[in-house]
C-alpha cells in the first residue's frame, strides 16, 4: 500500500514537480501568541463555504425556480425527498454560521491591524467576499418564495432604489421590473447559483494565494522580536492544519445539532396581495441597518430619512473597506488608538441596534 502511494507521488512529481510545493508547505510557519486563536476563523469560514457549495448543489437537484414552483419545490424537498429537510436545514444554518464566522474573522483582522501593508489586497478581497456573502444571504433568502422573504426583498431592493441617480435603474435591474415578482425570483436564483459563486471563487482564490505567499500577519503588540524575545511558531503542516481540521469537525457537529434540533422553517407562501405580517424582521446580520432605518425620522433637515440612512451606511462601509489605505499609522508599524476606538464604536453600535431590533 505504501508503495502504491509513493509510486503515485513519484509519478505525479515527475510530471508536475510536487517537490517545490511540499518544500513550500514544510517551510510555512504560523506564529504562536496569545491572539493566535483568531487565525482559525478564516479557516472556519472557508469550511462553511465548502459546506454551502455542497449542500447548494444538492438542493439544486430538486429546487425549481418560479412563482408557482419555488415554494412547492422546497415543500417537496422537506417532506418527500429523503433527508431533504436535513440538507435544506444545513444550508440555511451554514449560511448564518458562515456570515457569523466571516464577521468574527473580519473584526479580528481589523483589531489586529492585519490589513496593514503588505496585506491591503487580502483585506480588500476579504471585504468583497463578506459583501458577496451578504448578497448570497439576501438572494438565497428569496428563493423559497415565502412571505418573509417577499417583503424582505421588497424592502431590500427598495433601499437600493433610494440611492441617488443610479438607484432607480438598479432597482429595475434587481427586480427584473417595477415590482418584486417571479422575474425577481428568476434573477435572484441566477445571481445566487451562478454569478455570485463564480465571482466568490475567484476572490477566494486570490485571498488564499495571498495568505499563502505572505504568511500570517502578526499583531503589532505581540511583535516580540523587538523586545528580544524569540518568536514562537508552529509548522503549518501538519500541526496547524490538523488543528484546523479538528475545529472543522467540531463546527460540522455544531451545524448538525442545529440543523437537526432547530430545523429551518419554511413559513407561508408569498402573496403579493397580503399585508406585511406583524413582527417581520430581516436576517440578524441586516438587523442593525433595519433598526437604524426604523429610528431615523422621515425627514432630517431637507433630506428624506431613508436616503440619509442609505448614504450614511454606504459611506461607512466604503471607509471600512478601504481602511488599509487611510490608516497610515498602522502601515508604518505604529500603534493607532483611533482605529481601536472606531472599531469598538462599530461593534457597540451593531450589537446595540441588533439587540434593540429584537426587543422593540
Amino acid at each position: 500500500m505504501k508503495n502504491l502511494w509513493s509510486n503515485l507521488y513519484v509519478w505525479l512529481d515527475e510530471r508536475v514537480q510536487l517537490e517545490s510545493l511540499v518544500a513550500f508547505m514544510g517551510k510555512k510557519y504560523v506564529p504562536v501568541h496569545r491572539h493566535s486563536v483568531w487565525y482559525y476563523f478564516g479557516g472556519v469560514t472557508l469550511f462553511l463555504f465548502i459546506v454551502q457549495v455542497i449542500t447548494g448543489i444538492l438542493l439544486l437537484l430538486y429546487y425549481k425556480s418560479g412563482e408557482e414552483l419555488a415554494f412547492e419545490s422546497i415543500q417537496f424537498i422537506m417532506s418527500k425527498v429523503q433527508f431533504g429537510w436535513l440538507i435544506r436545514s444545513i444550508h440555511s444554518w451554514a449560511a448564518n454560521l458562515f456570515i457569523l464566522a466571516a464577521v468574527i474573522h473580519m473584526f479580528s483582522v481589523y483589531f489586529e491591524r492585519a490589513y496593514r501593508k503588505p496585506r491591503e489586497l487580502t483585506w480588500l478581497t476579504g471585504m468583497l467576499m463578506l459583501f458577496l456573502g451578504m448578497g448570497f444571504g439576501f438572494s438565497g433568502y428569496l428563493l423559497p418564495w415565502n412571505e418573509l422573504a417577499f417583503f424582505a426583498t421588497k424592502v431590500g431592493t427598495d433601499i437600493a432604489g433610494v440611492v441617488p441617480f443610479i438607484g432607480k435603474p438598479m432597482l429595475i435591474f434587481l427586480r427584473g421590473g417595477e415590482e418584486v415578482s417571479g422575474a425577481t425570483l428568476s434573477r435572484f436564483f441566477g445571481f445566487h447559483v451562478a454569478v455570485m459563486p463564480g465571482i466568490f471563487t475567484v476572490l477566494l482564490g486570490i485571498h488564499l494565494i495571498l495568505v499563502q505567499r505572505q504568511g500570517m500577519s502578526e499583531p503589532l503588540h505581540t511583535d516580540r522580536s523587538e523586545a528580544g524575545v524569540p518568536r514562537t511558531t508552529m509548522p503549518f503542516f501538519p500541526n496547524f492544519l490538523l488543528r484546523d481540521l479538528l475545529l472543522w469537525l467540531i463546527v460540522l457537529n455544531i451545524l448538525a445539532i442545529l440543523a437537526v434540533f432547530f430545523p429551518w422553517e419554511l413559513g407561508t407562501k408569498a402573496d403579493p396581495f397580503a399585508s406585511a405580517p406583524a413582527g417581520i424582521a430581516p436576517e440578524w446580520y441586516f438587523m442593525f441597518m433595519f433598526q437604524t432605518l426604523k429610528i431615523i425620522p422621515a425627514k432630517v433637515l431637507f433630506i428624506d430619512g431613508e436616503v440619509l440612512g442609505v448614504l450614511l451606511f454606504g459611506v461607512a462601509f466604503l471607509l471600512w473597506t478601504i481602511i488599509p489605505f487611510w490608516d497610515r499609522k498602522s502601515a508604518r508599524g505604529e500603534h493607532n488608538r483611533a482605529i481601536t476606538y472606531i472599531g469598538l464604536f462599530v461593534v457597540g453600535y451593531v450589537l446595540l441596534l441588533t439587540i434593540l431590533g429584537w426587543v422593540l
Partner: protein
Amino acid sequence: MNDNTGAVHEGKRDLLKYILGAGLVAWLGSIVYPLAAYLKPPRQAEVEVSSVKVGKLAEIEKDSGAIVRFGNKPVILVRSAAGELRAFSATCTHLDCTVQYRKDLGVIWCACHNGKYDFNGKNIAGPPPRPLDEYRVVVQGEEVLISKQS
C-alpha cells in the same frame, strides 16, 4: 523634403490611430450595448385598470381594513367605525411594504418599519416620508367600487 514626408507619415499615423480607436470603441459598444439592453427587463403590457368592484357594502365590516387587488397593485380599503369608506395605495411610502389596518390602534400600519398613517392616509408616525396615495371609493347602490383619483 525629408521633414515633410515625416509630417505626412505622422499625419497618416494619427489618422490610423483615430480609425483604430474609433473602431475599438464601436466594437466595445457593439458588445456592451446588447448586454446592457438584455439586462433591462422589457416593459410588460399592463392591463390598465380604472376601477374594480370590491363587493357589497353590507359585507364590509365597520372599523376594518382589507387589501384589494387593483390591477397588479394592492390597495387598502378601510371603513371607519362610523361607516365611512376610504381607499389608499397599500404600498408604504417608506420602503415598499404592504400596509394593514390596525383595529387596536385605529391606524393604517406598516409592519416593516412601524410606519403609521391616519384615516386620511396621512403619515403620522414612524419613517414614512409621504402620505399614501388616495383612491376614490364609489358606492353604487349596494356595490362598492374603487377607482383611481382623476
